[in-house]
């Protein structure tokens, strides 16, 4: 519900030039909803400017952890810091791209949506227009600026969300399965675009996904989570393969198999916990890396 939560939102009317990303520290974080403990003892360090993919089985607590970094939920224990500050609530320095395009304001045009953040921060009109123009161009929406969100395709809506977040010049961008609702082709285009935009802005990005291929294409690091309840960080994979990446590349394929085994084991645990059959042992053998998608570009 509405407008009565947590701390006031500090504003920041900094220069529109890209700011270097901020580091994120997640320390022994527990998050519970009433009795239910969704996340327990999660710790993760993310360096400034890194693109980290958070990978885990459905329902394990990825969104919950991301929401804690965003400041939407407060950890019951532990702490999250971003830059030098402890996270106590939402802040313009931490932009959030949501999975659902409902996050856009349907009564505003794309341009007005993108201008929303700078307007809230009190950026003067001339400067605001320049910033909006710049990020609309960056995400390729300059020609659709006067349209309303419901007149855009799914991919365009997610671009609009991204532009809206970038217009606030955040040092951290948190993305919760932003391309989850897109078709495979559009998703591929968006992944390539994100890769470019990330390098242009230099922001730290935390990217939640349950698509292993997507994680490999994008991540500097890929962090897996254990199945919930009481989910935690399971394993941390460094991924410094050259970009743009190609899932059919042997090194990518090997990482893909490793990750699938890792996640598969967690899915199997979940299913067993739910009393379902355990024919799913998570071993490779069905399908092959990049089955749905053979190339990054």
């Amino acid at each position: 519900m509405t407008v009565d939560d947590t701390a006031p939102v500090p504003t920041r009317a900094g220069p529109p030039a890209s700011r270097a990303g901020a580091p994120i520290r997640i320390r022994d974080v527990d998050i519970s909803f009433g009795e239910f403990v969704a996340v327990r003892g999660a710790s993760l360090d993310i360096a400034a400017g890194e693109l980290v993919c958070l990978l885990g089985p459905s329902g394990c607590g990825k969104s919950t952890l991301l929401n804690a970094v965003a400041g939407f939920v407060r950890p019951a224990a532990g702490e999250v810091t971003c830059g030098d500050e402890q996270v106590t609530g939402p802040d313009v320095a931490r932009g959030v791209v949501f999975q659902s395009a409902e996050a856009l304001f349907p009564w505003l045009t794309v341009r007005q949506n993108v201008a929303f953040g700078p307007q809230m921060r009190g950026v003067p009109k001339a400067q605001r227009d320049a910033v909006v123009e710049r990020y609309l161009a960056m995400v390729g929406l300059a020609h659709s600026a006067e349209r309303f969100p419901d007149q855009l395709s799914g991919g365009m809506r997610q671009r609009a969300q991204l532009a809206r977040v970038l217009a606030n010049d955040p040092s951290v961008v948190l993305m919760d399965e932003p391309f989850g609702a897109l078709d495979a082709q559009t998703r591929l285009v968006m992944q390539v675009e994100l890769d470019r935009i990330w390098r242009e802005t230099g922001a730290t990005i935390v990217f939640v996904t349950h698509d292993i291929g997507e994680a490999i294409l994008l991540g500097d690091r890929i962090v897996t989570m254990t199945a919930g309840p009481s989910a935690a960080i399971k394993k941390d994979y460094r991924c410094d393969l050259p970009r743009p990446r190609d899932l059919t590349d042997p090194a990518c394929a090997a990482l893909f198999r490793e990750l699938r085994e890792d996640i598969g084991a967690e899915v199997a645990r979940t299913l067993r916990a739910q009393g379902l059959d355990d024919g799913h042992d998570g071993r490779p053998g069905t399908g092959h890396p990049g089955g749905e998608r053979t190339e990054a570009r």
Partner: protein
Amino acid sequence: MTVEAPTVPDRTRASAPSAPRRNRWARLTRIGLSVLSVLLGVLIWDLVSRNYTAFFLPSPRLTLEGAVELVRDGTLWDSVSASSTRILTGWLLGVLVGVPMGLLMGCIPWLRLMLDPYIQFFRFVPPIAFVTLAIIWLGPGEASKVALIFYTTVFIVALNTLAGVLSVNEIRMRAARALGAGPVRSLVSVVLPSTVPHVVTGARLAMGNSFLTIVSAEIVAAQSGLGSLIWTARNYAKTEWVFVGIIALGLLGYLFDWILRLVTGRTLRRYGVTF
């Protein structure tokens, strides 16, 4: 709204080339059917009325003559304008007070909890039950009638606005917060626009209820208005005046609702108001 709109872009999408013609046909068919249905109704009324006295059931023709009579001596116009003025005044005041009330109730949980018992209670007390009190407290003049319309409107509009606030998309609120909107700006820039369709629905419902209320109030205490016209017809044994009054009420309500839909549908379309 705090967000300025330099140009209001055209929201209508281009439609297929054959669509306008098909739409026109569909429209004509709709209007034709409505007209046909009304004519049929009048015909049946006429046939039935032949079996009864004019006092019991006046014919359409007699009713028309009654209407002409009332128009000539100005009574009909006076009644319509008296009732309309009361309805519009009370309804407008009710909307102006009801919307902020609903917004505040939606955003301030303790306020909602405090007002809840009253709302649950007065939900079941129709405005007609207050006619006597309104006259005792506010006198037999305009104020009592306007107050009753206000009562019925404020209630419906506030409750609908409240429902709208409570159903504001949580993701949208989070997005606004993360983009730098504090509580007050979120209320103005996100909650209020999200609530517009609920407000319009509430205002329309309230308009309907205002008509129900005004007639009862005018029957009990008024020298003017459609309710008074209907009631005084009894003294002259002019049943056709009752019919004229009823038809005028129906048409007036239809007109008001049509204007409301037209205006809101045009101006508030971007907020999701569609008719």
